[in-house]
């Protein structure tokens, strides 16, 4: 095996993890990553070395992951009970006031300079209900516009807004529990 192929293969577990977080399905994730590795091994000359190998592969992965999402759009948008839970009901009283006031999170630098914070953040993203997690990652990792997400998944804007809203509230709650109040996320 060439040195290049070896380097590519070393990055496979990391690419798989990224693909799984986005797709929430092991078989689709494996397919997406295999397609990336095929591109890399068949056209190594496309890697001009101007960026890190990992950055280049992730760029390709993002396209392959969108292909999978599009291909499986119907299954990708099935809502679990967790996806359906109205998080607003848990946070707000009927009159629109907070049940429990948000707490002070302190200065951003306190948290954002610590690698551990990002580990908790990733765990919290992995803990989102599957469909919420997919659309949230499409927005935040794939950086697709809301119009693009609606198109790829064939869902309405209203459905997307609800999913993103719930995902962000859940993520906030998970960070509160797992980081800001010091209880570990498992």
């Amino acid at each position, binding site marked *: 095996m060439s040195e290049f192929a070896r380097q590519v293969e070393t990055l496979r577990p990391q690419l798989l993890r990224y693909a799984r977080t986005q797709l929430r399905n092991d078989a689709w994730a494996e397919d997406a990553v295999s397609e990336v590795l095929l591109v890399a091994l068949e056209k190594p000359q496309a890697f001009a070395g101007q960026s*890190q190998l990992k*950055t280049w592969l*992730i760029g390709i992965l993002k396209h392959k992951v969108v292909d999978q999402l599009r291909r499986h759009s119907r299954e990708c948008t099935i809502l679990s009970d967790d996806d359906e839970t109205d998080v607003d009901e848990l946070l707000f009283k009927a*009159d629109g006031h907070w049940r429990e006031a948000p707490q*002070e999170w302190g200065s951003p630098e306190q948290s954002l300079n610590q*690698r551990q914070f*990002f580990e908790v953040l990733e765990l919290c993203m992995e803990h989102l209900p599957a469909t919420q997690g997919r659309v949230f990652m499409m927005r*935040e990792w794939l950086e697709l516009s809301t119009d693009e997400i609606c198109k790829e998944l064939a869902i309405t804007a209203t459905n997307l807004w609800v999913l*993103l809203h719930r995902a962000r509230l859940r993520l*906030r709650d998970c960070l509160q529990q797992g980081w800001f109040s010091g209880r570990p996320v498992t």
Partner: protein
Amino acid sequence: MELKRSCREVTRLVLESEDRELTATERLALQMHWGICATCRKFRDQAQLMRDAMARWRRYRDDDSGPAA
């Protein structure tokens, strides 16, 4: 348009501003609510921290320029 918004509505607007441009009236309603509601100011700051965190996470994940272990 009515400018008075509940905490629940303000929260929805703050989160929607991650994904779309708010109208001037919506932004004004937020400013007015924050002027009188310390609780929603805290939520606003949390949302800002999350936005910064996601931006940094993207860089950290895609090219390893995150905080050192």
